[in-house]
């Protein structure tokens, strides 16, 4: 064993290490391979904040993080993309509309007091709301039955109400439409109230509970000391008058309450309040999650949603891996057929290459997506090309009548510059893609780029080490193992200067 065979040992050692890594560290799979939902959220500028700075993005992200945790999806990820976007990944989530609803709302909680002289208007609106609410309750109890909505539909008062609120409808009114109507009424109610300085930012906690008597869900609020003082002041100012206290969330009034005369001197103290709108369990839970996370400092828009079914993901993996492996098998057969022993060496080197690359993907980790797998396959193409370049040179040297060992050395030396150029130009494309591309384009650039870097290493080291190792065996050290002896040029003296 010569000195050069140390390299072979190093390669073997790396290979063993790679197998260990690949079997022990799980690969990170992208959503297109394991199924789930991906949402891109864009932070919208407002009149006050026209430019979105990293600070504002961080603020939005902190709030969203809390809300995402409240959703209870395991492994969810929220990351900033570019200057004004956030990317949320919810593995396994098939129904992103629930998440979209919880995340997309600003959840600005306000306490407002009734404007003077609006008693009559408010009473009108409240009675409208009451009748709508009783219908909602009736529909809910009967599971939104079509029979019942047909009956309600013939009621002219209700139809008038819908007309009044500009809700066009060509079909039978159902539960959803009554809820929509209720929101419209509540929005109108909130306009009868004027804002105060008490908002959701003074909350320390939010919770939910079910009222013992009515079975309705309520959301409970706890204020910090400053908030508690403000709440006491506000309640004091309207205690005993006909003015009501309105709890408004995102411009929709949730409940209006009167403050008793007994609070005239100190207001309601203790720093706690309850919102008793007409909540279902889910409504209460969503509101609780939103209030706990706080209001979004800036509104957000959901600009992209991708949902991929879980079995579609596994199918994608299966198909692309099968196709790729078959392709590579053919490549291996081709290489052995053309380059004989050298072809066999390159198949070995390429197997090592694949192992190294996969283990790097696992360590870093690189999230594997479908385009990422395509990038990996293309990087194998680059690695094959490096081997072809070397072996073509080898054949050339042998044909010119050079000895085997000298030919091997010369072939690596001569192919070197082509290999470097080819790999570096591909690497330049990868860097451009990685820094300027978005989403899965990045994944492709990452896998291809890592592959190209490693391929440079394996082509120049692995292939050579294996080849040299095999050449230390007398039986293999024959020119006929590489080319057909008849191809050797008889007169090959004046080719090289």
């Amino acid at each position, binding site marked *: 064993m010569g000195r050069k065979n140390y390299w072979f040992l190093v390669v073997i050692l790396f290979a063993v290490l790679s197998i260990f890594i690949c079997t022990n560290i799980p690969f990170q799979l992208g959503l297109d391979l394991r199924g789930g939902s991906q949402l891109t959220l864009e932070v919208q500028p407002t009149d006050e904040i026209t430019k979105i700075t990293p600070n504002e993005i961080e603020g939005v992200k902190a709030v969203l993080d809390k809300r995402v945790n409240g959703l209870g999806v395991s492994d969810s990820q929220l990351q900033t993309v570019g200057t004004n976007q956030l990317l949320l990944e919810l593995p396994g989530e098939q129904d992103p*509309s629930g998440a979209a609803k919880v995340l997309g709302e600003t959840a600005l909680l306000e306490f407002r007091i009734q404007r003077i002289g609006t008693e009559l208007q408010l009473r009108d609106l409240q009675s409208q709301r009451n009748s709508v609410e009783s219908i909602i309750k009736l529909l809910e109890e009967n599971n939104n039955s079509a029979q019942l909505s047909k009956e309600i539909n013939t009621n002219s008062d209700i139809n008038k109400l819908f007309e009044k609120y500009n809700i066009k409808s060509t079909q039978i009114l159902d539960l959803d439409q009554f809820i929509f109507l209720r929101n419209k009424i509540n929005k109108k109610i909130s306009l009868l109230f004027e804002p105060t300085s008490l908002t959701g930012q003074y909350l320390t906690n939010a919770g939910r509970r079910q009222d013992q008597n009515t079975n309705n869900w309520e959301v409970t609020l706890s204020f910090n000391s400053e908030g508690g003082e403000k709440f006491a002041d506000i309640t004091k100012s309207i205690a005993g008058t006909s003015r009501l206290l309105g709890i408004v969330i995102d411009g929709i009034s949730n409940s209006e309450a009167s403050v008793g005369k007994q609070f005239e001197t100190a207001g309601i103290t203790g720093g706690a309040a309850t919102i008793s709108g007409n909540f279902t369990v889910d409504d209460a839970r969503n509101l609780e999650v939103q209030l706990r996370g706080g209001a979004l400092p800036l509104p957000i828009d959901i*600009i992209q949603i991708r949902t991929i079914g879980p079995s579609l993901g596994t199918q994608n993996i299966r198909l692309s891996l099968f196709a790729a492996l078959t*392709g590579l098998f*053919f490549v291996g057969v081709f290489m052995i057929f053309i380059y004989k022993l050298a072809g066999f060496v390159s198949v070995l080197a390429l197997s090592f290459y694949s192992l190294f690359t996969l283990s790097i993907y696992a360590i870093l980790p690189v999230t594997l997506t479908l385009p990422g797998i*395509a990038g990996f396959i293309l990087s194998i193409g680059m690695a*094959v090309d490096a081997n072809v370049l070397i072996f073509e040179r080898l054949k050339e040297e042998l044909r010119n009548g050079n000895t085997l060992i000298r030919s091997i050395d010369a072939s690596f030396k001569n192919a070197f510059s*082509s290999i470097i150029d080819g790999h570096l130009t591909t690497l330049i494309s990868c860097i451009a893609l990685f820094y300027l591309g978005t989403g899965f384009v990045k994944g492709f650039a990452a896998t291809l780029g890592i592959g190209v870097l490693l391929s440079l290493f394996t082509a120049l080291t692995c292939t050579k080490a294996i080849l040299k190792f095999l050449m230390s065996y007398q039986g293999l050290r024959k020119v006929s193992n590489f080319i057909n002896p008849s191809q050797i040029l008889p007169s090959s003296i004046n080719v090289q200067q």
Partner: protein
Amino acid sequence: MKSKLNVQLYKNRKLIWFISFSFSLISIIGMILCLKSPNIKAPLNLGLDYTGGTQITLERSCSDNCFELNTIDLSQNISSLTNVDKNFDSDNSPNLNRSQIQLLDNSKLVSIRLPFLTASQSESVVTEVSKSFGPFINDNTSVEIIGPSLGKQLLKSSLISLIFAFLGIAIYINFRYDRRYSFLALFALLHDVLIVCGVFSWLGYLYNVEVDSLFAVSLLTIAGYSVNNTVVVFDRIREKSLIENELSFKYQIDNAVGATLTRTLYTSFTTLLPLICILIWGGSTLYWFAFALVIGVIAGSWSSIALAPSLLAITSKKEFD
């Protein structure tokens, strides 16, 4: 197999140029047709990624023989949601009459293309379609919604990364070789990219094939591949011109191309093998991606074997004999 294939680029240069010119012209015509077409209005038929919108793909749970679905019924079914479903009853709800429906994979897959919807709106559509045309395999449903602003942003970032990659490659070759090589490698690259774009503009014009972000990725891969091939040939030309200095430059080029010809063909072939396997077995997601690469690999081999060296031969200052 002879050690040096007898390549005569200089002699056949006009034929080579004619072939490349014809393909480029056909490509440009395809792009102009797309640009003029009222449905496309761009040199390429831009897909969901770039225009924004909603794409819902449903897999029907029927075995091999799925009965034909009537796509007109389906799109009417979707339009009927307007003003009826709670998610589509406001005045500014998206226009559901503009749905495009395609049946793929022996009508096993139903692909529905709609304007930009919200998550709950898309769910309404899925529920409605499942009611009338189901059953579908829920686990295989995929929904993709891209906002119009994101689409524009994706298009912009794709173009910027293409330009930067081309520039980077040109600067690298300029540094490693000289300006002439760099210019020709970039020329060959643009030729290959143009032909791939041309093929896709024709496909878009005739068969409504769309280009997505993956297409931009494939263009960049093709760019890298094309330059790689060209550089290998150029590298050998430079080497030959140092060794065989007594020969004229055009012979040196012919010899260099001859010496690298087997390598270029083998490499192209080994790259094509996995790509063709992806085309056949890889499923629909990667189909057009692999297709673009196949075209690119073929065009890239041609331009690096024939086009770039034949152009190098005439730009040489050396005398021809």
